[in-house]
């Protein structure tokens, strides 16, 4: 794209500013940064246009040059442009310096290896120190302005890379006593001084003559990149927030020598002495900076700030008074005696209401009063409280009245509440008492909120004030009682405020909530209404109605049903019924619901009524509550109907959940006519009425019976479970397990457990009724009976170090028929339904034993082989 005209640029910049993200997503986006740079050297464009281009680069460098490489290139270009400017006065030099600084900082390109950084830093320092920085750098008339700008740029660099200018501290100090713009140099010096103190203290190094003038080398070398190189989290808060800052170790690590301490004191004193020459905002910055810098530093007394205080206390400039408060927080008693504290509070109280000051300032000072950093605070940290020294007299001058704007009113009301809370005992004699006044105020607010057509703001204020009073003075019946009465009157006058009452009931504690519910209920059921008022009544009733007792509620609903002609009102009515169901139903409710199921015009309403009726008559109380309770299936949907429906679905249908237990198969000594699986249970979540269902793949066994357990709780020992197996064929199998159970909240859940494996050995049974004394004959008979239908095979059974005897006793003990330990064993295993496995283990060798086996079932052969070969490994 060629050079753009002024208008074209104005249009393009306008489009960009409208929405940078949209613009950058468009086609033109890529060229913007490039065009902007090249047009800075376009001689057809005027300087103001170029300044506005630079202004854009000051605001959005990250959009124009998103990475370090692009930022480095852009900064280089900006610096080149600066040098190319003709030596006459130009409005571009300042913004070019600002833009180059911003671009390097934001693009993350500032580093000792960056060419642009290595050019910019010496240039800025040279300008700041008032040196000659070389050819064509503007006329002398511009030098002072550029000097100031360079100081600001260096200050920003030092803010983002603390410690960068540590080496130039002495130079800056020597300069600030001489000529030069006082504010930029003072502010730069103060920041570098403070950062140096913190950095040196953290590294445990002393001040190392840093305060004494260094030598200026135009080639650089006075930059300290060590910290700048480190990660960004090395940033130092310039004005740390207390109380967090109070917990910091401070500058304890710094132990300046007496010489250094003197030098430091002189530097700070010099800055403070000339501070009156700075603008008020800069003075405030200086005080924050130096105050927190010297806090806790050995050999530096905060008294050095004292001469400034009297001057500052006379003004009500918000930044100045704020900085005095910061000094107060930093030094406490060391700088402010009790009398000083009292005076500060006086000035603050005065400023918080002075007619010459604007409302936001009043509000800020009121906040400062309630969060005042006291010398000896009594309350909890972080909790708003009236400072002790504020005293009743000052407090009372800040009493709210109805003419205050809402925020000032609430702040003052809070103070009044604190006063009432404190005064509970003392004020009996006073007429009128602060409490009386408080109640009058609340009455005034309610009167305004009750006014027909009064703006929402008034209602908001009324309810916020009521909430504030309720939360501060909930324990004082003399306040709560009239408040409740007044609120019920307000509701009577303006039922349209129902949503706010519901909100209030949701927020306040039981001291106000319970009696307020009661009076609102009274208010509703004794004054049935029509139209809008009815909607409001239903809304309130939904919140306050308690099931079980009130005939009056049911009568009200019965009467209201006639007026509920549209869907919305019917739903509101049904919501009240639902609330009653949830809190216990009550005798007449079933009749009411049955009536509604017939009577309501809207089919949806009728359906709901019918549903509630069925739920009421079929479900027991706890289950009913759960069924109607808020859906557990988050997230909640916007529509109440859907949400409600979800609640039913959740409760009346079975939920799929992760398993509440873990099962494992335990080794088990076989007994009885059928193989039995012993299962160990590990309980993860509580489960009631648990039913475990087992299903075997491929019909290898007869269908398995379910196991029922009434209750399982984590942490309580669980008994093992026994699962009888009825094999149709003697084969190992996988059992699929499902759990069906009820949660403590009453939901019915279903879970799939990991499958259980039935091993071949789990099916083994000993032969019953072996005649005593003729075991050998018995075995031989069995052995012979296997052939010719069956099969004989020979398998090598490897033995572990424990030998044959241990192997047999460990795995095959119940099935041994004839034994000649330790060398020979005859074993007979019965495998239901009608198979057998016979083993002869004889002539064991060191590493194994040959096993001759016979079975009447060919299919068993591979299983038996695997079993025997794997025995030693078990």
């Amino acid at each position: 794209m060629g050079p753009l005209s002024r208008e074209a640029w104005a249009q393009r910049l306008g489009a960009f500013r409208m929405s940078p993200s949209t613009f950058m997503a468009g086609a033109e986006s890529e060229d913007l940064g490039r065009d902007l740079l090249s047009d800075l050297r376009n001689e057809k464009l005027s300087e103001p246009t170029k300044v506005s281009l630079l202004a854009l680069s000051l605001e959005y460098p990250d959009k124009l040059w998103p990475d370090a490489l692009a930022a480095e290139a852009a900064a280089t270009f900006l610096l080149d442009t600066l040098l190319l400017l003709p030596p006459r006065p130009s409005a571009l030099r300042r913004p070019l310096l600002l833009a180059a600084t911003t671009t390097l900082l934001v693009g993350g390109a500032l580093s000792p290896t960056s060419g642009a950084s290595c050019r910019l830093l010496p240039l800025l320092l040279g300008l700041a120190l008032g040196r000659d920085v070389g050819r064509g750098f503007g006329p002398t008339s511009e030098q002072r302005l550029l000097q100031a700008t360079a100081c600001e740029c260096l200050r920003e660099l030092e803010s983002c890379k603390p410690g960068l200018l540590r080496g130039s501290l002495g130079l800056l100090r020597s300069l600030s006593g001489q000529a030069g713009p006082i504010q930029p140099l003072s502010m730069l010096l103060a920041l570098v001084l403070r950062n140096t103190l913190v950095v040196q203290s953290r590294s445990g190094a002393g001040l190392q003559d840093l305060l004494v003038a260094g030598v200026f080398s135009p080639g650089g070398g006075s930059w300290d990149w060590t910290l700048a190189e480190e990660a960004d989290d090395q940033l130092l808060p310039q004005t740390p927030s207390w109380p967090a800052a109070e917990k910091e170790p401070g500058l304890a690590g710094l132990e300046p020598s007496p010489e250094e301490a003197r030098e430091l004191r002189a530097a700070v004193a010099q800055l403070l002495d000339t501070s009156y020459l700075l603008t008020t905002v800069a003075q405030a910055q200086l005080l924050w900076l130096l105050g927190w810098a010297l806090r806790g530093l050995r050999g530096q007394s905060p008294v050095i700030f004292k001469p400034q205080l009297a001057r500052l206390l006379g003004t009500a400039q918000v930044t100045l008074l704020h900085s005095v408060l910061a000094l107060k927080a930093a030094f406490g008693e060391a700088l402010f005696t009790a009398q000083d504290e009292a005076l500060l509070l006086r000035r603050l109280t005065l400023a918080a209401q002075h007619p010459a000051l604007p409302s936001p300032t009043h509000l800020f000072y009121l906040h400062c009063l309630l969060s005042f950093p006291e010398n000896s605070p009594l309350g909890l940290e972080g909790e708003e409280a009236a400072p002790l020294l504020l005293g009743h007299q000052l407090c009372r001058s800040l009493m709210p009245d109805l003419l205050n704007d809402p925020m000032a009113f609430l702040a003052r009301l809070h103070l009044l509440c604190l006063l009432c809370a404190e005064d509970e005992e003392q004020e009996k004699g006073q007429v009128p008492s602060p409490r009386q006044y408080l109640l009058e105020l609340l009455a005034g607010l309610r009167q305004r909120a009750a006014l027909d057509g009064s703006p929402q703001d008034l209602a908001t204020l009324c309810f916020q004030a009521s909430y504030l009073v309720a939360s501060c003075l909930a324990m004082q019946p003399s306040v709560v009682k009239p408040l409740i009465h007044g609120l019920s009157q307000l509701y009577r006058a303006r039922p349209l405020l129902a949503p706010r009452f519901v909100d209030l009931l949701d927020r306040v504690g039981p001291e106000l909530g319970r009696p307020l519910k009661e009076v609102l209920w009274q208010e509703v059921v004794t004054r049935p209404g029509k139209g809008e008022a009815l909607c409001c009544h239903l809304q309130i009733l939904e919140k306050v109605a308690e099931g079980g007792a009130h005939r009056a509620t049911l009568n009200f609903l019965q009467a209201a049903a006639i007026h509920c002609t549209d869907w919305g009102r019917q739903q509101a009515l049904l919501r009240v019924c639902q609330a009653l169901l949830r809190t216990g139903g009550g005798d007449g409710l079933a009749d009411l619901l049955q009536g509604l199921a017939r009577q309501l015009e809207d089919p949806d309403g009728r359906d709901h009524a019918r549903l509630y009726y069925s739920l009421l008559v079929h479900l027991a109380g706890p289950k009913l509550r759960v069924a109607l309770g808020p859906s557990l299936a988050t997230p909640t949907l916007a529509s109440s109907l859907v949400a409600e429906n979800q609640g039913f679905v959740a409760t009346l249908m079975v939920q799929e959940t992760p398993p509440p237990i873990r099962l494992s198969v335990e080794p088990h000594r076989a007994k009885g006519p059928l193989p039995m699986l012993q299962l160990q249970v590990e309980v993860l979540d509580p489960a009631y009425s648990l039913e475990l269902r087992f299903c075997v793949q491929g019909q290898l066994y007869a269908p398995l019976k379910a196991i029922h357990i009434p209750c399982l709780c984590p942490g309580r020992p669980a008994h093992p479970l026994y699962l009888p197996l009825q094999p149709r064929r003697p084969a190992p199998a996988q059992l699929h397990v499902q759990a069906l159970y009820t949660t403590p909240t009453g939901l019915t859940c279903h879970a799939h457990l990991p499958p259980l494996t039935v091993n071949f050995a789990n099916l083994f049974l000993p032969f019953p009724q072996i005649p005593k004394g003729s075991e050998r004959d018995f075995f031989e008979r069995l052995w012979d009976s296997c052939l010719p239908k069956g099969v004989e095979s020979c398998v090598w059974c490897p033995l572990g170090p424990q030998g044959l005897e241990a192997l047999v006793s460990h795995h095959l003990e119940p099935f041994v028929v004839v034994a000649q330990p330790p060398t020979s064993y005859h074993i007979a295993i019965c495998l239901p339904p009608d198979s057998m496995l016979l083993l002869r283990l004889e002539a064991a060798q060191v590493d194994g034993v040959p096993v001759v086996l016979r079975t009447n079932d060919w299919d068993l052969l591979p299983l038996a082989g695997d079993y025997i070969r794997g025995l030693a490994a078990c």
Partner: protein
Amino acid sequence: MAQRAVWLVRHEPGTPVCGTVRFSRRFPTVEKRAKVFNGASYVPIPEDGPFLKALLFELRLLDNDKVFVESRDSCSRINKTSVYGLSVGGEELWPVVAFLKNGMIYACVPLVEQTLSPRPALISISGISQGLEFLFGMQDFLYSSQKNDTELNTKLSQLPDLLLQACPFGTLLDANLQNSLDNIGFASVTQPQKQPAWKAGTYKGKPQISISITEKCDLEGIMPNVTISLNLPTNGSPLQDILVHPCVTSLDSAILTSSSLDTMDDSAFSGPYKFPFTPPLESFSLCYYTSQVPVPPILGFYQMKEEEVQLKILVNLKLHESVKNNFEFCEAHIPFFNRGPITHLECKVSFGQLEVFREKSLLVWIIGQKFPKSMEISLSGTVTFGVKGHNKQPFDQICIGSTAYVKLHFRILDYTLTGCYADQHSVQVFASGKPKISTNRKLISSDYYIWNSKAPAPVTYISLLP
């Protein structure tokens, strides 16, 4: 101690968005620090569009704000300062300093140099007061001597350049933006040493001092030191609650402590009140004070009673004999709130003329330059009202039923109620050359209400003061 961004938003009720962003400026180097300091609680500065929407919603300035929105209006969401949290893109941008003045919303987001959760107390965030000062500075710049929209637009168009001077990196250097404007002009002047940063240049012209006690003090010329004394006559009411301009270099402790919060006694400090200062170039308010004069300048009562369809009113006013009976103007405004237009009026005044604004339901009693010899005047009559028109007649949240007031507007030149005056000869100027010194005084009514004695007035707490 820096700002991440600043906005000027024009509130335009009745338009689809209800406002436009007239000016905005972001400070990316500060933003970068915010990201590090705030850590996981960092919320980026939104673009102008979403910011505007969130701001208007939070300040309840959207046209459809008539309904209760729990997330904003809940009784437990109590905001007691001009600092807000704006919900933007599901996150909360905090702290946003904002206030509405003359249809313009001034807003900025100060840097907080720590994590935002839990939120630190506002008192411990230095950027809050700086943000307020910044916004006041912009407000002063936009509305000082500005008459119409064209001038406002001109001033708005100057803002980007001014901020390059006054706040190049988000750290405010001077809240007085006019100074920055002058600074550009003074750039070519070689300045002497120790030029205060708040003084933009040197004054070239005849030195002069003019003092005007409407709590206002004009003076020009570069002079290192001036001391002005305010004096009271022997029976004058002591000046209290004195706030001084930051250029005042020292203050007597008696001035610092004299306060309306204390009980008055004869020992109260009664001057002379000395203010040594180094003046800035522009005219400025040297000090503000309050005072408790024993009697109001105009005493009176107002009785209003509803009788069936009409109101019966009676107003009696009496000028105190000690007050100079020579007004620039004097009027009594009698508004009727929350009622329909005036349809019928039968009224008699003992002095002056009565103007009727029927649609606005307002009576203005023009008393003129002087009270009559008796010093006492009265108005009596009946007023009848029509049906309340929609939004045409004034609404008031205080004046409900018979709660009503008469408001007096007056100005007396060359007079102060306290008797306070500045003696030309007591002005000390420590500089070469003799400045021309002029002084003047005037008394202006501010909120001068006389409430209906036949109905409850808004509660005041005066009765509790001992």
